[in-house]
C-alpha cells in the first residue's frame, strides 16, 4: 500500500507546487499590471493619499487640499474663488476625474511625474511622504478679477481672454456663467453627485462648465475686419491706411444680385481703410475679401492661428475660416459672418499679433512646473508662432485701431493717458438672425515705452439685452478697458 501512498504524496506536492507557481504568477509576473489597473481602487486611493500640489497665480495658490472624513480618499481638492478660476484650473474631482490644467499637469500635481522620480526615491529613503509639485501660471490675478467681475456684472454668457503680446502669456481667462469646482471635488454620492448633476448641460441650459474662453467658437463679426485689413496691407492691395479704396456703396456681391448692407448711414463709399475700420464698413471689407479671394484670406487667417487647435497647454478649439468659398461667401466670411467662427482666445491672438508689431506669440498659461521644494522642473519659454504682418504694416494697422477707440465705435475703451487700439464687433446669429447678437471687442493698450503689455478679447452673449443695445462698443468694451487697466496698474 505504500507505493500508491508515495504517489499520492507526490500528487499533493504537485498541487501545492501549482499553487506556488500561480502565486508567483499573480504576485510577481502580473503584479504591476494588476496594481496599476485603472479599475483597481487602490490606484485612486493612492492618488488622493497626499495633498495635491497647487496651481499658483501671482505667487499665491488658487487651489488647496482638504482632509476628508468618512472616505478612503484622504485629501480632496479645494479652490479659492473657484468660479473665477475654473476656466484656468479645470477641476480635479475624486468622483468625476480631472480636466484641463488639473488633468494635463496631473503628474506634477500628484507627484507621480517621472521627472520627480529621483526626488520621490529620495523621499522614500528618508521616510517622507510623496508630495505633489506646483504649477505656476502666467495669469494676472487683477486682470482675471476685472474680467470675471465685468462678465458677472453684465450678467449674460460671455468670455474674456487677455494676453501679453510680446510673450504670449495668458493674463486672464474668464468664462461666465461659471461653476465652483470645489462643489464636486469629493466623492460623496449625495452632495458631490448632486452638485455635478446640476452643472451638467442637460440640467442647466447655461452650461456653466463650458470653458467659453477656449472651447466655444462664435462668429467674430466685425472684429474679423482687422484680419481682412491685415490681408489687404500684406497683399499690397492697399498700402496707405489713409488712401481711398475702390469701394462702391451700395456694393453688390460678386456673382449675386444681393447688396451687402452697412449698419446705419455711415460714410463708406470709397472710404479709406482707417475710416472704414472706424465706422466698421461691411462694404469696404467685404469687397477686400472678395477681391483678394478665398486663398489669400485663408492664408492670412491661418497665419493668425485659425483652423488649428491651440494648446496652452489646455486645448482650445480650432477657429474656423473656410476654404472652397465663392466670392460672395468669401466677402461675408471676411466681415466675420458666414462660416467664420473664432474662440475668444483666437481673437485675443489677433489683437496681440497686431500689437506686437506683427509677430504672433504662442499663447501659454503655464509659466513653470515646480517640485514642492520650489525647484523648477520645467519652464515655458515664449515661442513665436508666426509673423502674419510686417512691422510696418502692423504699425499701420495699430494706428487704424487706435482711431477706432479714439473717434470710432470703440470709444468706451478709452483710458486717459494711454494709447488704446481696438475693434468692436456685433455678430448676428440664429436662423434669420433671430437670436440676440454677440457683442465683441478686441483691443490692446500701449505702455509708455510704446510696446503693448496687454491685448484682450471680450465676447458677450446676452439673451436679455435689447437687440439694438448690443454692440461691441456698448457691452464688451468697458470690460476690456477694465482688464487692460488692471494689467497696466499691476505693471507699474
Amino acid at each position, binding site marked *: *500500500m*505504500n*507505493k*500508491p*501512498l*508515495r*504517489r*499520492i*504524496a507526490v*500528487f*499533493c*506536492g504537485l*498541487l*501545492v507546487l*501549482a*499553487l*506556488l507557481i*500561480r*502565486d*508567483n504568477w*499573480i*504576485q*510577481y509576473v*502580473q*503584479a*504591476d*499590471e*494588476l*496594481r496599476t*489597473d485603472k*479599475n*483597481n*481602487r*487602490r490606484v485612486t*486611493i493612492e492618488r488622493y493619499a497626499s495633498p495635491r500640489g497647487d496651481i499658483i497665480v501671482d505667487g499665491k495658490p488658487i487651489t488647496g487640499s482638504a482632509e476628508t472624513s468618512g472616505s*478612503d480618499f484622504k485629501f480632496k481638492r479645494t479652490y479659492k474663488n473657484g468660479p473665477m478660476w475654473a476656466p484656468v484650473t479645470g477641476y480635479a474631482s475624486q468622483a468625476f476625474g480631472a480636466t484641463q490644467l488639473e488633468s494635463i499637469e496631473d503628474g506634477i500635481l500628484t507627484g507621480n511625474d517621472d521627472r520627480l522620480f529621483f526626488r520621490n526615491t529620495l523621499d522614500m529613503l528618508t521616510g517622507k511622504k510623496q508630495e505633489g509639485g506646483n504649477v505656476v501660471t502666467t495669469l494676472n490675478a487683477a486682470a482675471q478679477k476685472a474680467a470675471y467681475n465685468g462678465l458677472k456684472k453684465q450678467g449674460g454668457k460671455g468670455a474674456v481672454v487677455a494676453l501679453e503680446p510680446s510673450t504670449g502669456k495668458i493674463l486672464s481667462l474668464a468664462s461666465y456663467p461659471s461653476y465652483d469646482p470645489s462643489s464636486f471635488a469629493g466623492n460623496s454620492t449625495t452632495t458631490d453627485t448632486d452638485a455635478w448633476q446640476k452643472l451638467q448641460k442637460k440640467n442647466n441650459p447655461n452650461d456653466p462648465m463650458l470653458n467659453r474662453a477656449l472651447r466655444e467658437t462664435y462668429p467674430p463679426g466685425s472684429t474679423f475686419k482687422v484680419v481682412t485689413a491685415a490681408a489687404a496691407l500684406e497683399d499690397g492691395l492697399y498700402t496707405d491706411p489713409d488712401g481711398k479704396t475702390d469701394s462702391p456703396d451700395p456694393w453688390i456681391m460678386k456673382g449675386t444680385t444681393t447688396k451687402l448692407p452697412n449698419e446705419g448711414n455711415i460714410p463708406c463709399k470709397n472710404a479709406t481703410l482707417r475710416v472704414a475700420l472706424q465706422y466698421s464698413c461691411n462694404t469696404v471689407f467685404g469687397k477686400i475679401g472678395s477681391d483678394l479671394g478665398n486663398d489669400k484670406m485663408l492664408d492670412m487667417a491661418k497665419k493668425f492661428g485659425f483652423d488649428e487647435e491651440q494648446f496652452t497647454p489646455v486645448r482650445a478649439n480650432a477657429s474656423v475660416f473656410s476654404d472652397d468659398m465663392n466670392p460672395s461667401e468669401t466677402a461675408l466670411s471676411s466681415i466675420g459672418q458666414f462660416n467664420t467662427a473664432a474662440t475668444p482666445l483666437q481673437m485675443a491672438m489677433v489683437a496681440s499679433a497686431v500689437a506686437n508689431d506683427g509677430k504672433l506669440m504662442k499663447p501659454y498659461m503655464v509659466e513653470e512646473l515646480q517640485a514642492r521644494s520650489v525647484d523648477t522642473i520645467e519652464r515655458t519659454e515664449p515661442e513665436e508662432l508666426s509673423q502674419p504682418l510686417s512691422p510696418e504694416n502692423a504699425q499701420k494697422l495699430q494706428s487704424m485701431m487706435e482711431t477706432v477707440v479714439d473717434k470710432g465705435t470703440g470709444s468706451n475703451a478709452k483710458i486717459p493717458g494711454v494709447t488704446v487700439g481696438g475693434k468692436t464687433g456685433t455678430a448676428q446669429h440664429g436662423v434669420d438672425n433671430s437670436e440676440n447678437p454677440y457683442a465683441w471687442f478686441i483691443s490692446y493698450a500701449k505702455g509708455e515705452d510704446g510696446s503693448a503689455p496687454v491685448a484682450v478679447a471680450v465676447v458677450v452673449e446676452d439673451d436679455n439685452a435689447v437687440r439694438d443695445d448690443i454692440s461691441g462698443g456698448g457691452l464688451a468694451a468697458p470690460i476690456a478697458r477694465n482688464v487692460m487697466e488692471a494689467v497696466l496698474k499691476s505693471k507699474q
Partner: protein
Amino acid sequence: MSGTNTSPTHHTSTIGAIGAPSRRNTELALLAFAVVIPVFAYANVGLALNDSVPPGLLSYGLGLGLLAGVGHLVVRKFAPYADPLMLPLATLLNGLGLVAIWRLDQSKRLSNYAEAAPRQLLYSAMGVALLAVVLIFLKDHRVLQRYTYISMAGALFLLILPLVPGLGANIYGAKIWIKIPGLGTLQPGEFAKIALAVFFAGYLMVKRDALALASRRFMGLYLPRGRDLGPILVVWVISILILVFETDLGTSLLFFGMFVIMLYVATERTSWIVFGLLMSAVGAVGVASFEPHIQTRVQAWLDPMREFELSRAGVQDGVVHSEQAMQALWAFGSGGTLGTGLGQGNSDLIGFAANSDFILATFGEELGLAGVMAILLLYGLIIERGVRTALAARDPFGKLLAIGLSGAFGLQVFVVAGGVMGLIPLTGMTLPFVAYGGSSVIANWALIGILLRISDTARRPAPAPAGNPDAEMTQVVRPS
C-alpha cells in the same frame, strides 16, 4: 502492514524502533513559536492601524497560548508518540487566521458586518476541545472501523441537511449552509468530510482485494469488472447530486477526489485514477451545461474583469455577478513580492466573505508573495505529515483513513487557494484553520485529532513481542 517491513531505508516511518523519542518537547518548542508569531502579527496590525499596541493583545495572546497549551498537554498525556509538527502547524495557521480576521474587523469598509475575531477565537477553543475529546476518548482509531456504515449514514444525513426546507440557507448561490436559530450558520459538509473518510476507509479495507484483483487487462490498464464499478458510481452520483442541488463545485470535487485517492491507495490500480478523472470531468462539464450558477463561476474564472464590469453595471440576468474574483486578484497583485505590511492593505475591498473564502487575498496583499508562499508551505507540511502518518500506520484502515483525511485536506487547500488566486474556478470553501467559520475550524481540529491519534498508534514503540510472529507473516497477500 507487512509491506512496511520490507523497506529498511524508511525506518523513520516504520515501527519497531524500541524506545523511539516521543518528540513532545520539540512540539512544545515549536508551539511557542506558533503562539509568539501571531502575537507579534497582532501587535503589528494594531501599530499599523492605530499607532498603538492593540488593547486586546494580552487576552489574545493568552487565549491562543491556552489553546496551544491545552492541546499540547492532551497530546502529551493521551497521544505521547503523535507527530510533533501537526499541532504547532495548525496552531500557527489558526493564530494567523485570527490576526487576519481581527484586522478585517477593524476595516471601516466592512463595518456593517459583525465582529468576527472573538467568535473565531471561541470556535477555535471549541475545535481544540473537540481535538481533546478525540484524543481522550478515541484510544485506538481502529475503533472507528466499527462505525463504517453509521458514518456513511451520518455523512449522507449531514449532506442532505442544507436541502431541508427552512433549515438550509442559500448564501450567494451555494446551498451548503444550514441555519441554526440563535447560533448562526453551519456548514455540515465540513463534518461530512470526516465521516465520509471513515466510511471509505472502512469500506475499502474490506473490499479492496475484490476491487484490485478481479479485473481484466486492457491496453495496459486493469479494467474493473462491471459490478465492482458500483461503489465508485454511487459516490459519483452523490457528488453530482451535491453539485446539482447544493450548487457547490468545491464540496463535490472534494468528496469525489477523496474517494478516488483512497480507492487508488486501497487497490493500487492506476485505472481507478483514469476512471475517476474521466467521471469527474464528465460530471462537471455535464452539470455546468445546465446550471447557471456554475456557468457564472466558470465565466468569472475565465474573465474576471468582465464579471467585475457586469457587477458594477448592475446587470440583472438571473445570476449573481460578483466583482470579488477581480478584487481578490487586485489584492494579490497590489501586494507584490513583500506586501504592504499587515493592516496597510485594502483587501477589504473584496467585501462580503473577505474574512472567510477570500482570506488568502488579505495575506496576499499585506504579506505579499513571500507570506503567501510561507502559508502554502505550512499547508504543504501539514499534508506531508498526514501522508507520512499514512505511511507509518500499521493497519490498512489507519493508512486509508490517514491518506483520505490528508488528501481531502490537500484538495480543499488547493480548491480554495486555487480559486481565490484564479487558478481554477472559485468555489465556496474555506481555507482550513485560517478562514472565518466555525464549522471549518472545529471540523479541521477534529481532523488533526484523528491524524494525531493514527500517528501516535503508528509511532508508538511496538509492544513486547508476544504470540506467534508467524501470524503476521501469514497475512501477506501480495508484495508491494
